[in-house]
């Protein structure tokens, strides 16, 4: 074999090895919230703000605390089915707090597998350790359900989960979108919008790899299921006042008395349960987004 070819081969082996290491699921070996006494009431608030039930409650079920899964998320990459995350053995019943933490913040399952980013862990990666501990305590107090996992309907090459490792290198663990000196209300609004309610998952357009185009943050996007458009919710796109935004988050009425609909209806159901100060904080954050 010629020397040049040998070197090329060696490089290829090293590159492949490097890629294999870089795309490996990377759970953090953490002791989560040591010495913290869990507060399930705060956990319920986090559960509501993060919209967990919107996808994980059984579709068409009135009881939003039975997290049986099954909701279908259509996307250009295939259809994803939200899994059972009830407190039963089919859900998160056997999970430790560090495993739960790694699922939310790093998108890694207790079995060492990458989750698809249909699960919005790119948002949840900014959740605080204490909030995650409270959420864990609350979710384990909810009923168990024995609905089995439904496999995602995703074709090649997106069915190779190792590819998600490469995706995460590009899109996971980014800084906050809105930065700079923020007062307490704006910080709370940013936490709720960017890390909890994951507004950007629908309202921000995606690039060809399915990552959020943060230069177009909350400026609206095509509906991933194909029909219609998810609206621009920056001040330039929406033009609503703070009280109009808060009214919408509370009653679901727009300023001209149209009503919330579609998948946003479940979001408003959740926002209406939050303290008024949280709805005001979200409105303050949205109104501070750059114009144009």
């Amino acid at each position, binding site marked *: 074999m010629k020397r040049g070819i040998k070197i090329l081969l060696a490089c290829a082996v090293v590159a492949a090895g490097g890629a294999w290491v870089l795309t490996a699921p990377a759970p953090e070996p953490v002791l989560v919230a040591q010495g913290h006494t869990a507060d399930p009431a705060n956990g319920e608030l986090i559960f509501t703000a993060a919209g967990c039930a919107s996808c994980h409650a059984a579709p068409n079920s009135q009881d939003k605390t039975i997290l049986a899964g099954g909701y279908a998320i259509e996307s250009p990459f295939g259809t994803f089915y939200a899994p059972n995350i009830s407190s039963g053995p089919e859900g998160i019943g056997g999970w430790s707090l560090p495993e739960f933490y790694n699922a939310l913040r790093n998108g890694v399952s207790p079995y060492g597998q990458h989750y698809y980013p249909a699960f919005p862990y790119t948002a949840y990666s900014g959740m605080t350790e204490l909030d995650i501990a409270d959420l864990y305590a609350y979710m384990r107090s909810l009923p168990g359900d024995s609905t089995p996992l439904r496999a995602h309907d995703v074709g090649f090459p997106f069915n190779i989960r190792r590819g998600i490792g490469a995706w995460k290198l590009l899109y996971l663990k980014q800084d906050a979108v809105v930065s700079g000196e923020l007062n307490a209300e704006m910080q709370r609004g940013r936490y709720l919008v960017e890390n909890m309610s994951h507004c950007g998952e629908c309202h921000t357009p995606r690039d060809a790899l399915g990552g959020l185009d943060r230069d177009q943050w909350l400026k609206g996007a095509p*509906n991933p299921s*194909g*029909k*219609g*458009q*998810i*609206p621009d919710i920056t001040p330039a796109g929406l033009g609503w006042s703070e009280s109009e935004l808060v009214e919408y988050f509370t*009653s*679901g*009425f727009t300023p*001209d*008395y*149209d*009503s*919330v*609909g*579609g*998948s946003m*209806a*479940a979001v*408003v159901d959740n926002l209406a349960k939050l303290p008024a100060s949280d709805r005001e904080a979200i409105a303050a954050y949205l109104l501070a987004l750059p114009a144009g």
Partner: protein
Amino acid sequence: MTLFTKTAITAVLSAGIIATAAFAESHSDKALEDAVKARHAQMQMISYHMGILGGIAKGETPYDSAMVDAAAQNMAALAGMAPASMWLEGSEQGFTEGSRAKTEIWSDAAGFEAQFEKLGAGALAMVGAADAAAVGAGMGAMGAACKACHEAYRGPKN
């Protein structure tokens, strides 16, 4: 395969395609578009009257019992419009210009009509609301019907 079989298959397939096309054309595009416009007018009237009630509930306009009753009665009439002439099958989002109607309107017609009935019942219950607080309370029930219907049966903005 004999020539006869081939011809027979071709004929059956063609007949099927023509039949499908004829079915799709059973309402002209204009009829479907007109139905969508009529529905938008109905929704515009509903939001107009909701706005009158909302203004009173929030204290932006003074309480006026005659205005509350008129708005509530008109809302009940709007919610009670017979669906057959308004919701023509095929006038759905992605097929008819301007429509945001989901196909569940026709596959789950009973569920869809039940939401209009809830809105109508809420509007009738509003008649005689004695003050702004009562108007606000009544709006909660009507708003829940608006939201539930738009959640299940209306697609996103075009």
